[in-house]
Structure formats: structure tokens, C-alpha cells
């Protein structure tokens, strides 16, 4: 490493190598914070929750005695809620996205709608919960028989929450359809709806599906808006129709965590495992669908 040249170039390799290594370690540590956090979380939840995992835990109703408690009502409540939220959100979200991408004239009104949709996607979820409470539960819902604190009211509230996300994802999927497909279709004498139905939507559906599933998996974990609507934690039946009362996994978990007895904390951890499994399998479906259709369109 002796320098015997007389010009002013000084490669200074040693200090460059040191800086390079420091930077590398710094970046690696930043990544590890996230990964280690996730691993600690999973280990913590598994050690706390696995001893409580059993078929009876999944298929039994909550109880004051930890050994007998289960989360069947919350699990089925979550399934009901997801199903109905999807039923409300997907048609409205996709239709709104089609309108905005394919039909809406480029004017101020459209711009205002677009900015609003984008902003709504960032509104805190408790705000939607309170809106749902005052609008669906108190204003429209007049009694427990009609709307009230029902699964339907919960699904409508969650729909408000995820609708902007579904609209944004669907718009992106529709915009990604090459314009040359539309031109080719119009050039054959198809009208606008035929072009959308026959060429645009088939190409956009994988993207729409992926976005919708991811939006739904966000809705699964939301506790705040559903607490406002449901306010129930101790439910010994599962909803049998849309106007039934309900509870969901995050509420049940939250309730168990806040109990003084240690055993309930184990139950909460077991509940988290159930929720994580549900969430990860939905994300896995989304990834699977995306990969499957990506491959097809690259053929």
C-alpha cells in the first residue's frame, strides 16, 4: 500500500473499505429490526398461545373459566363480516373504478372525486366506526330487528373503510390494461360496454382480485370501527342472519388481554395465532392469484 506517485490522486483504500463496511452493517441492522421484531412477536405468541390451542378452543364459545373458553362466535363473526363486506364492497368498488377510469370526463368534478377517494383511504378507522355508529346503527337502524348493531351494520361500516382501497386498487388494475387492447376492440365495431366487458375487465380482474383480498385482510384486523358498532364481547351464539348481533376476533382478543387472570393472556395469544393464520392464508391466496395470472399474460 505504499504510495510512490507524486500526483494528487490518493485512493485511500483503507478508509474507503472501512466506511463501506460501516454503511453495509448499518443497512443490515435496519433490515434486522423489522425481521427480529416479527420473529420475537411470532415466538412470543406461539409460546404463549400454543398450549391453549385445541379444537375445543376453536369450536367453543367464550366462558368465564379460561379452561372452557373458546372463540367460535368471534371466528364465525369475522367470517360473516368479511363475507358481507366483500359482497358490498366488490361490486360498488369495481363499478366506481370502471366509471372513473373508462367513463368519467376529465374535468374538475372528476378531479375532486379522485382526490377525495385518495384521501378517504387515509382516514383513521375509528372515524369510520363512529360514522357507522351514528349513521347505520342510530339513524337508519331503528331497532335491534332492523340494522341496529348487526353484522350488516358492521359490514356496511367496514365497507366504508375498505371501499377507497378497493377503488384505488381496481383503478390501478384497469389503468394497467394496454390502450392498444381498447383500440383493437373499438376498431372491430364494439361499443364501450362491450370493450370493457370483453377486453378491459378480463385483463384487469387478477389485479382487482389481489387488491380486494389485501383490502379485506386489512379489514379483518380492524378492531376500532367494529368495537363502536358491535360493543359485544361475550356472545354465546353465532350470527344466523345479517341482522343478528355479532363479535369478531380482534374484539375477543382485546377483551381477553384486558382480563386480570394470566390464563386469559394465553387465550389471547391463541386467538392471535388464529387471526394470523387467517390473514396469512388470505395474503397467500392474493400472491398465488397474482403469480398465476402474471405467468399467463407473459406467455
Amino acid at each position: 500500500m505504499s504510495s510512490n506517485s507524486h500526483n494528487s490522486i490518493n485512493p485511500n483504500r483503507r478508509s474507503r473499505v472501512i466506511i463501506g463496511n460501516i454503511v453495509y452493517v448499518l443497512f443490515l441492522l435496519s433490515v434486522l429490526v423489522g425481521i427480529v421484531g416479527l420473529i420475537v412477536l411470532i415466538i412470543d405468541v406461539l409460546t404463549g398461545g400454543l398450549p391453549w390451542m385445541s379444537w375445543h378452543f376453536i369450536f367453543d364459545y367464550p366462558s368465564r373459566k379460561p379452561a372452557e373458553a373458546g372463540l367460535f362466535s368471534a371466528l364465525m363473526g369475522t367470517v360473516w363480516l368479511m363475507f358481507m363486506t366483500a359482497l358490498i364492497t366488490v361490486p360498488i368498488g369495481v363499478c366506481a373504478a370502471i366509471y372513473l377510469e373508462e367513463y368519467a370526463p376529465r374535468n374538475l368534478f372528476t378531479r375532486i372525486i379522485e382526490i377525495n377517494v385518495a384521501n378517504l383511504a387515509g382516514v383513521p378507522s375509528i372515524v369510520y366506526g363512529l360514522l357507522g355508529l351514528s349513521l347505520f346503527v342510530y339513524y337508519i337502524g331503528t331497532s335491534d330487528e332492523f340494522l341496529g348493531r348487526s353484522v350488516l351494520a358492521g359490514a356496511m361500516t367496514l365497507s366504508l373503510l375498505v371501499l377507497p382501497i378497493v377503488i384505488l386498487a381496481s383503478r390501478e388494475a384497469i389503468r394497467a390494461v394496454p390502450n392498444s387492447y381498447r383500440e383493437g376492440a373499438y376498431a372491430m365495431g364494439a361499443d364501450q360496454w362491450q370493450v370493457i366487458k370483453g377486453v378491459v375487465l378480463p385483463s384487469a380482474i387478477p389485479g382487482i382480485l389481489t387488491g380486494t383480498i389485501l383490502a379485506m385482510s386489512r379489514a379483518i384486523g380492524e378492531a376500532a370501527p367494529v368495537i363502536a358498532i358491535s360493543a359485544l364481547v361475550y356472545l354465546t351464539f353465532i350470527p344466523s342472519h345479517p341482522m343478528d348481533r355479532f363479535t369478531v376476533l380482534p374484539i375477543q382478543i382485546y377483551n381477553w388481554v384486558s382480563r386480570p387472570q394470566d390464563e386469559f393472556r394465553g387465550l389471547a395469544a391463541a386467538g392471535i395465532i388464529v387471526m394470523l393464520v387467517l390473514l396469512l392464508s388470505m395474503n397467500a391466496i392474493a400472491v398465488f392469484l397474482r403469480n398465476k395470472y402474471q405467468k399467463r399474460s407473459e406467455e
Partner: protein
Amino acid sequence: MTSEIGQQVILSAQKLNVYYGEFNAVKDVDIDINQNSITALIGPSGCGKSTFLRCLNRMNDLIVGASVQGKVMFEGVDLYGGEIDATEIRSRIGMVFQKPNPFPKSIYQNIAWGLKVNGFKGNYDEAVERALNQAALWDEVKDRLNNSAFTLSGGQQQRLCIARALAVEPAVLLMDEPASALDPIATLAIEELIKQLKDHVTIVIVTHNMQQAARVSDETAFFMVGENRSGYLVEHDDTQKIFSNPSNTRTEEYITGRFS
């Protein structure tokens, strides 16, 4: 479909002006297109030949801010007259684009879909075979009709797009530089095809390639960029005359490559 009278005008633009917003992209074009002929539109970039082509089946309707003044007469009707349905026109006057743009469907469905949207009630298998035969593609794809159209080569994809357009039996086929994205061999195949198609349809083709215009077309129209960047028609005549003895000096300069 073959005309018995030798030269019959099928498509005629009269004082046609195209605007993009305020910009006068194509200025005062008058041209008659003869039935069952091949007309090549040539000229430098930005001379409005593609814009003009897209007026002939109202594809310009799809561009925001585009407007058209003047007339395009087709079978005795003004395409820009009040009560004309643009979708109906496009099934009578088809179009093939610069880049092959098959739909992300099977080879079969690419053709069948166009028939379906136009309310075709006959035998789909026969119609698909006929269209693929007309586009000289049948022998290459008959064993894999259910494969994705994207499994075809670029030249095959473009012939599929031509087959797709022919399937709905248009009277006119507009082609916007149909071979510019293809290799020389695929280009030659497309050119051969165009010459054969003349018996079925009238063809108007935009091309950047003057040899191509000379090889395939019966008539040639030469466009230029004029004042304010507006495109206009300089000269329209038999291809032979345009390439051997043009009446306009600008045409001659362009043909001989003195500017491009």
C-alpha cells in the same frame, strides 16, 4: 364483393379538417378512394397521414379534444353526419394498427369475439377458419387454435389482427404502418397478403416505407407538413405515376430522398 364497374369510389373525403383542440392537424383534404384498390398514404413524420386515416372510421372520436370538420362519404352517407353510429361504421371499416395488438385471449377467441360483438349468428368455427385462411394464417395455427395469441410470433400476431378485422367482413380495411414493427421476412408476408386481400376489401395503408408503397399500392397519396405544422395532401395519383413522373416538385424531392 368484387365490383363489376371498374373504378367505383367507395370512400371520399371532402374538405376534411382535423383539429386537436386549436391545432389544425390536417387541412382541407379532398380524396377519393376507389373500391377494391390499395391506396398508400406516404409523407414525412407529423404530416397527418395517420390522423387522416383514423378519421376514416372515426377512431379519432376516442381521442380527447379531437374534432373533425368536413365530410367523409362512405356508400353515400356522411360518416360525420348527425345520426351516424360510430360503432357501426367501425364494423364496416376495420383497422389494423402499427404494433400487433391481439387480445389476451386464445387465437380462436381473438376472432370469435369480434363476430360476437357484432351479433354474428352463423357457424363460428367456419367463420374463424375462413378469416384465418384469408389472412394466410390457417395452416400455421390450425392445430393450436386454443393457445394464447401471445404464443405467436410478431408477424403471425399481425396476421391474426388482420384476420380478426376481416372476420366481420368490412368493406374497407385501414392499415396504420402494419409492418413497421416486423422483421423483413414477416413484412414481406404481410405485403403479399395485402395484395391478395384486394379482391375482398378496399385497403388504405399508411407507410413510412416508400418501397413498400411502390410494391403494394395501386394509388399513392403524398402528404406534407405545411404552415403552422398542419398536414395537407400534396398529390394523389396512380402509384406508377407518383413514383415515375410526379406532377409536384415536392413529391419528386421526397420520393428521391432529398428530404424526409
